[in-house]
């Protein structure tokens, strides 16, 4: 079939299936299979569908995904979020701006022990929202602060998005993690600025100087030491361990999960329910990633065999000399996709097409991975599908549209700052990996 007909047919099919509500994994798989049939390569189905599901999964780097999810589950189910937040609450002694800022700091710290913005947001919603409300935050802003704090787990390493990007593009996960640290910190700072701004706008002038009646919350020394100790241990293993080469990312994930488990034992949280909840959540995320991964693999085979990227890059011609134009187009596409679709799925569905292009226009893959990771994290906060906001709304029963009003400000402001900074100063991403 001629490319001039093939491309529109494939695109229409893709969006038709997507909008009809077909699961993403089946959209990828289906378009891949139909695409192969259309270009008269149905004979390849035997080889690809037969061995790809198993062989593309038997991948050492992919192991990090279930392990990091398991780690996050142990940490969250051990009640460490609650402990950390109680510590922060006690430090804030009634100053509302401080509590909001510290909530975001806790979010950043949790980011270092959790790979998923959604899971962390749910915990933050449970723990932080009632206290923020107490301090006089309107409920929508409180929800947005919790969602933003939780979403930081999406970019601050370990990050499932970066792992998926790394596995699919064969970019070292360690480099991606190191590259994401500075943008992650900048994002935390941007969230704080946005938070202060929004707090000022939503607080009536007469209540601005008001200090809340404050009573210290009870927390045992053992809980303080264990929660802080476990978080610091895990963060140390992940950052220090990977940075120094002491452990590979996969090993860091196993050690981190083990550390979380030990902490849960010390905190007396390990029982049947704890194990079942932790495992179930891990299995869900793993199952999801794997089935999408298989679909994406098949789609990427079709894309390769069709030779479309090669032809596309040829037809882009002189545009190749202006990578910035292509980058702007790609950013827009991602921004839109992340609005509607879960981040990991977006990564897996776009890379088969984009990777060959990115490689041909010579954009650094580590930089690009972190860039996409940032966009994806902000997508957790944007309507209509913003999983961090969904998670907070789910546990707090605050209406979603209210939270989105504010979370959109968090995402928009940080996105603008980060995109400009990363494009103008790529070293913000590349400096740390280069010192490894």
């Amino acid at each position, binding site marked *: 079939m001629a490319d001039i007909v093939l491309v529109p047919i494939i695109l229409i099919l893709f969006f038709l299936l997507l909008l009809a509500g077909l699961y993403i994994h089946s959209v990828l798989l289906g378009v891949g299979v139909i695409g192969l049939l259309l270009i008269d390569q149905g*004979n*390849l189905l*035997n*080889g*690809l569908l*037969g*061995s790809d599901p198993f*062989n*593309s999964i038997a991948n*050492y780097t992919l192991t990090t995904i279930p392990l990091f999810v398991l780690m996050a589950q142990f940490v969250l189910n051990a009640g460490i979020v609650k402990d950390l937040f109680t510590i922060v609450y006690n430090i804030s002694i009634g100053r509302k701006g401080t509590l909001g800022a510290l909530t975001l700091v806790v979010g950043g710290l949790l980011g270092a022990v959790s790979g998923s913005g959604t899971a962390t947001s749910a915990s933050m919603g449970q723990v932080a929202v009632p206290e923020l409300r107490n301090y006089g935050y309107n409920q929508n802003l409180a929800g947005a602060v919790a969602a933003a704090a939780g979403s930081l787990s999406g970019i601050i390493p370990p990050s499932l998005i970066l792992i998926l990007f790394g596995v699919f593009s064969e970019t*070292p996960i*360690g480099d991606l993690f190191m590259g994401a640290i500075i943008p992650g910190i900048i994002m935390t700072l941007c969230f704080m600025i946005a938070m202060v701004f929004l707090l000022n706008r939503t607080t009536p002038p007469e209540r601005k100087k008001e200090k809340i009646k404050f009573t210290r919350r009870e927390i045992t020394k053992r809980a303080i030491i264990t929660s802080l100790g476990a978080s610091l241990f895990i963060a140390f293993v992940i950052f220090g361990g*990977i940075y*120094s*080469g*002491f452990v*590979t990312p996969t090993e860091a994930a196993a050690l981190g999960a083990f550390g979380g488990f030990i902490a849960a034992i010390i905190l007396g949280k390990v029982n049947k329910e704890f194990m079942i909840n932790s495992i179930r959540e891990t299995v869900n995320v793993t199952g999801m990633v794997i089935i999408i991964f298989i679909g994406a693999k098949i789609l990427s*085979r079709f894309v*390769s*065999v069709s*030779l479309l990227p090669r032809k596309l890059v040829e037809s882009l011609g002189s545009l190749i000399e202006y990578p910035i134009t292509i980058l702007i187009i790609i950013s827009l596409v991602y921004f839109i996709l992340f609005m509607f679709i879960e981040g990991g799925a977006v990564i897996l569905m776009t890379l088969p097409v984009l990777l060959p292009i990115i490689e041909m226009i010579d954009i650094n893959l580590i930089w690009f991975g972190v860039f996409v990771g940032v966009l994806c994290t902000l997508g957790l906060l944007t309507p209509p599908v913003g999983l961090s906001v969904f998670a907070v709304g789910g546990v707090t029963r605050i209406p979603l549209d209210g939270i989105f009003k504010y979370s959109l400000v968090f995402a928009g402001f940080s996105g603008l700052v980060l995109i400009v900074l990363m494009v103008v100063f790529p070293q913000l991403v590349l400096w740390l990996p280069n010192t*490894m």
Partner: protein
Amino acid sequence: NNTDSGNNEGEIHLVAAGGGSPNHGWGEGFFTPWMEEVTERTDGRVQFEVFYSGELVENTHEYDGLTQGLADIVNVPAIYDPQRFPMSEVTMLPLTHSDVHIASRAFAKLIESDVELKDGKSFVELEYGDNGLKALPVSTTTEYVISTTGYEFDSVDAVKSATLRTSSRGHEAYAQDIAAGSVTMPGVDMYDAMNRGAFEGAFYSIADWSGYGFQDLFKYTITGANYGHFNSTLGMTQETWDSLPEDVQEIMTEVTHEIIEYSANDWESRKQEMIDYSLENGGVFVDIGELDEEVQSHLLVGMEQVWYDFIELMEERDLPGKELAILWRDLVIEEGGDVPEDIKELE
């Protein structure tokens, strides 16, 4: 599967695929020039569509890709698949002298050898033919040597307390024979692990250092003791091969021999580039002859043992281990290489 789908009358369209990168020694030094040459000498009658880097078939699954019809021609790094290609490991046997030219010529002769090893079958019939494969020889890699991040083999004890990353069963057996520790880990993770001192070194071919940036890491290399040459072949199903016109078959065979020489030179210059770089950056290359006598004999005794281990391993699987070892030994010596003393006595 695609041999008949050309656009023009008589055009042969072949899908070529491999798991390796186009910039790797085999990609740049062998496969790409081989295909270009074949296309040229057939006046464009044979056209290749190439997929490198696992785009179509994954590394170590090339043979599956061939039998499943994903590609018409692939590189088969058979050593990665000892279950189906058990005898290919023979080129990983340690030698006391050789280089990429010697090993490549010996390997080409091994593939073309009609010496009957078992049941009246030659090496190529047993190893590839029985798998339904037509194999054209490819240049081997440069020799595997022991390199460390600076750890020196100045005593037998030093050898015994070293831990090395192994990449084949022969290396694994050798590490055991010389009582050194061994680790297995993916190539991509090696740099970080060695960089922080998780283990001392590895068996690696110098020409391949740049793949993972090892030229900045390896500071101490023992030369003159060589732990084999990794081999690969260009594989087609016998069916595809038979479907090719005779003159195309001839051209392919002819080009193969010429490119082996070209590719061996390419490997050599890659190796020299790494050595020059390393020397400039404080790297040391020590010939085994310069080592302490006790260390020398400790290392050499281990080398012989690997041959016996290999023969035993083959014979356990009812394969002609001894015959194959003798054939390989003779081919290596014939091409100007050398083997451990005891092995010369092997009958």
